[in-house]
Each structure stands twice: as C-alpha cells, then as structure tokens.
C-alpha cells in the first residue's frame, strides 16, 4: 500500500511553511527530503507523523501505531537503559515476543554490548542508532527520520543507513530528511524543498536531469554568484546549452542550481 500527501500547505501564523507539496510515498522505497535551513523539511515530516494537523491538502497515511519516527533531537529516554528503552517501545505497541528482534536490531546497530547502559551515557552516534532501532522495532509501515545522521561520524552514518536500508527492504516506506546529498543520491526518490516550495521531485537521476543549463569544472569561477567549491576546484553553472567541456552534474549541483534559480525568482 502506498501513502501520499497531495497539494499540502501548512502555515504558522502568516508564514507559509509548506506550499502545495505533493509526495507519493511508496513501500520499500527510501525517500530523501532535501533542502536548506527553513526549507520545510521538518514541517513535512511532522505532518507525516501527525504532529501538525491543520493543513490544506489531502493526506493519506498509515495509522499512528504503524509509523516509526526519529526526531531531529531526542527520540530516546536518557534515564532508561538501552534495554529499557526498547522495552518501553514494545510495551506501547503491545508487542509480544519482541526480545529476539530487539536483540537483532541492537546487534546490527552495533550497540548490543551497551544494553544495560543508560541511554544518556551513550555517544551521539550510539543514541541515534538506539533511536533508529526503537523506531523500527514494531515493523512500521512508514519510517520517518529527521536528519538522523547529522553530525555523526562516517562509520555511524553507514551503520545507521544499513538499518534504514534493511527496513526499506522489508517493505517499509522510509522518508528521511537530510542535509547530506550523498545520502540523498542513494535514495530511491528525492524531494527538493526550498522556502516551503517543492522545487523538484523524482529519482536522484531525474532531479539531476531537471537542472537547466550546464556545469563546468574550473580552476577559478567566472561568476562567483553562480559558482561553488568542489574540492580544490570550482563548479560554475552556465545557463546556456551543453558542450563537450561540460561536467556531468551531480545531485548536489542540481540542488544548488535549482535553489539559486528559486532565490532569483523570489527576488
């Protein structure tokens, strides 16, 4: 069964947090929500988990007990041990014989040896992995993750992504907000938001292809307002058509260009 939000708009006071956003959420697919600060990523996720009720547009989502959620901070109970955190989630979902699955999840997350440690005493990465394990314990139909990998070391990010990918492989739909475009590049579907608007939607390849103009890899920028660093070199965007010297654009290039154009159009 697939889920969706259609023509979704949310306003906080006079500020529009989301404007006419449509997302089709397919089971077994990881959907990456990308965009800068204030783009509306968290608001979209909060609509998905039922924390924002007042909005325009259609919402077709699983019931709350079928949704797993890891907020951008927290998601764990620091004064409980790792095991007690898992037990609490199992109790709220009225799960029976959950212990083998909990053990398996903690094992795969690499925190099984800390089962009796207070969650507050875990490292940042371990806490995120515990929060992830708690969110998937009850086999959710929809897993919603708000920048779960932000600030984590590469190994922790990899372990967390393995957990997410496994969950998607078992049929759950995953919606993950992230600022890491390399992660988004691995997703099945990308939603690019800017200032509450949906700039692009589709597979990473499709979003990249939606970028107008071309990218040139240069030692120095021609126009600093439309160029950005890429290692020691510069990626310069040119609105004109492609030629042989053009660089194959990445999802990051496309996201930057689409946002630059949106900013320009918005004045």
């Amino acid at each position, binding site marked *: 069964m697939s889920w969706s939000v259609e023509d979704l708009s949310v306003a906080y006071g006079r500020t529009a947090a989301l404007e006419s956003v449509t997302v089709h959420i397919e089971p077994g697919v990881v959907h990456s929500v990308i965009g800068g600060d204030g783009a509306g990523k968290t608001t979209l996720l*909060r609509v998905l988990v039922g924390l924002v009720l007042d909005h325009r547009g259609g919402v077709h989502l699983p019931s709350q007990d079928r949704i797993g959620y890891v907020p951008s901070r927290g998601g764990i109970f620091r004064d409980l041990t790792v095991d007690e955190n898992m037990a609490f989630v199992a109790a709220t979902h009225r799960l029976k014989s959950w212990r083998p699955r909990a053990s398996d999840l903690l094992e795969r997350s690499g925190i099984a040896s800390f089962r009796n440690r207070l969650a507050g005493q875990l490292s940042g990465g371990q806490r995120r992995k515990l929060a992830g394990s708690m969110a998937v314990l009850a086999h959710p139909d929809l897993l919603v993750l708000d920048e779960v990998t932000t600030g984590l070391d590469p190994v922790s990010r990899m372990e967390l992504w393995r957990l997410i990918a496994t969950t998607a492989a078992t049929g759950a739909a995953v919606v993950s907000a992230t600022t890491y475009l390399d992660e988004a590049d691995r997703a099945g579907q990308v939603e690019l938001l800017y200032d509450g608007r949906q700039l692009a939607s589709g597979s990473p390849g499709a979003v990249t292809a939606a970028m107008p103009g071309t990218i040139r890899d240069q030692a120095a920028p021609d126009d600093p307002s439309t160029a950005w660093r890429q290692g020691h070199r510069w990626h310069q965007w040119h609105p004109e058509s492609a030629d042989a010297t053009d660089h194959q654009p990445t999802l990051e290039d496309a996201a930057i260009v689409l946002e630059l154009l949106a900013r320009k159009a918005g004045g």
Partner: protein
Amino acid sequence: MKAMIVKEFRQMRRDKRAMGLMIGLPVMLLVIFGYAARFDVGQIQTVVVGPNAVQVSQSLDSAYDVVEVDETGDRQAVERMLRNSEVEVGIVTGTGSSTMLVDGSELFVAQSALRRIPPATQPEVLFNPNLDTAPVMVPALIGLILLFIGTVVTSLGVVREREQGTLEQLAVMPLRPVDVIVGKIAPYFLVALFDMAVVTIAGLLLFNVPFVGSWLVFGLFGLVFLFVVLGLGVAISTVSKSQGEAVQLAIMTLLPQIMLSGMIFPLESMAAGVRWIGYLLPLTWFIKGARGEFLKGPDFSALALPLALLTLMAAVVFGVAMYRFRGDLAPKRGDAAQEAPFTPAASS
C-alpha cells in the same frame, strides 16, 4: 571588560524570569516581612459566656475581639466553638472567678492572650496545653513537603521530557494523551502519598505529636491538596522551557506559601491586604485542615469551607494544568485550516 558588562546586561534584560526574581523577589520579601512577619496578634476572636458575660466582655483588653456574648452559654459550648475554630479564646464567667479557655493550636494567638489575662480569670490552654511548637509545625510541614514534591519535583520531571525532546516522541507513540498524562503524574502522586504517610508517622513517633481527629478527613485534605500541588507542578512545567526556569518559577510559588499560609506567621497578625493573599494560597487551607485534625478533631462541618476551597483550587489548577499539558502532547495547529478545514483522505 566594558564589552562583557554590556553583554551581561543585554542577556539579563532578555531573561525575564531572572529579572522577575531580581526585582520581584525583593519587593515580595519587603511586603512579606513588612506586613506579615509579626508574631504578636492584635485581634483575638473571643466568646464570653456565663452569668457575668456582659460585664466581663466590657472590661476586656482591646486586643480581645468579642464576637459573641451569651449569658446562657456554658463551658461545653465554648469548647465546641474552640474545637471548630469559631473563636480563639472563650471566657466562661461564673459568680466568682472566670475561666479563660485558650486554643493552644493557634500558638501565637494563645501566647498573645496569655499576656493579657483579664483580672480574676484562670487561664486554661486546650489542645496543646504546653504550647509546644512541634504539634503546630508538624501538620504544616506535611503540607510543605507535599508542596515541594508536587511543584518542584513534578515540574522538573515533566520539563526534563521537554528538554530532552521526548515529549514529542511520546506524542507520536501509540499512546493516548490521557495515557501519557496519567502515566507521567501517577508515580509522583504515589511517592507524594508515601511521603505524606512517612512524615505523618515520623511526626507522631519522633515528636510525640497527638492526633485526635479523623484519619479519613485528614487523608481527604491530603488527597485534595496533592491534586492542587501536582497541578501547580505540571502548570509550571508547561510554561518552562528548561529545568532552571521551572525551579525559578517553583521558588516564586513556594516562598509566598511558606510565608503567608499561617505556617510560620499567624494570619491574624498580618495586615488585611497581605492576609487576603494568604487566603488565596492552597497551603493555608491544608494547614487549617491538618492542624484541626491533628490537635482538635473538629466537626466535619467546621472544615467544610477549607475543604471546599481546596477542592475548588484543585479543580481549577489541576484542570488548567491538564489542559495545557494535553496541548503539549496534541498536534500543533497552523492557520491553514481557517481557509479550508483538514479532511484526511484516509486513515488516522
């Protein structure tokens, strides 16, 4: 250094609660100590009975506020009035000398009365004959401990959830708001009940405080008072972003209750304006009920008003606190629905 001082003043100006503590607290302390911190009671509510009641009542010191003169009344009637806190002193006149019955549960009132014994009158202190402090303080301390647990500890417990971002987590878990609210508050409620029992037993055993009233009525007062203080704690937590803010606010609610509830300074000695603040505080009414049950065992009707007021406070404070707490757990509202109400396509 100048930059540091300017920065500190800017931060201080924006920390409204700290400013409240720095400016509001000295004003509050001045008012309390200026108008409330008096041990000498200037108005002693008095009944005079017996054949010479009229003559004796006319010859009394001006500190005695004679509320009733009854030539047909007897000692038994006076004792009942004292027990029910209708008066603080009762003078039973006879053909020769008179007997002045003094309510020993009102420590400072009794001391004031004993400093002004009318001529040819034999004083007799009831309920706390030696005018000991412990029997008067222990019931009040029970209230103070419940107040501390209810407001400080409960508010910290709830604010911790908000600080750690777990309140939002609870809101999206398959739990009803009522599950979260009751589950969150019930442990504090039970611990406070346990504390109440421990402090009461310790008071009885360690300080030999008598208990002459009804355990049922005392328990009822404790139960209703607990709802008020737990409500206060939850209400504080709903307007505090951090544990520091919650503690600041809890101190602001604790201090006036300690000073103006009659726990230390007698309400009767306070200036009228300050005394009325005392009447608005829940600890005032718990102390009236608890002291009554410990020392005097009044008729239930005599405690009906304190119990009714405490119940009203419990309903208002606990109700408002639960409403606000539920708001914390409920989904946030935007403005979009004003244009077109949300109608889910399916499910939840």
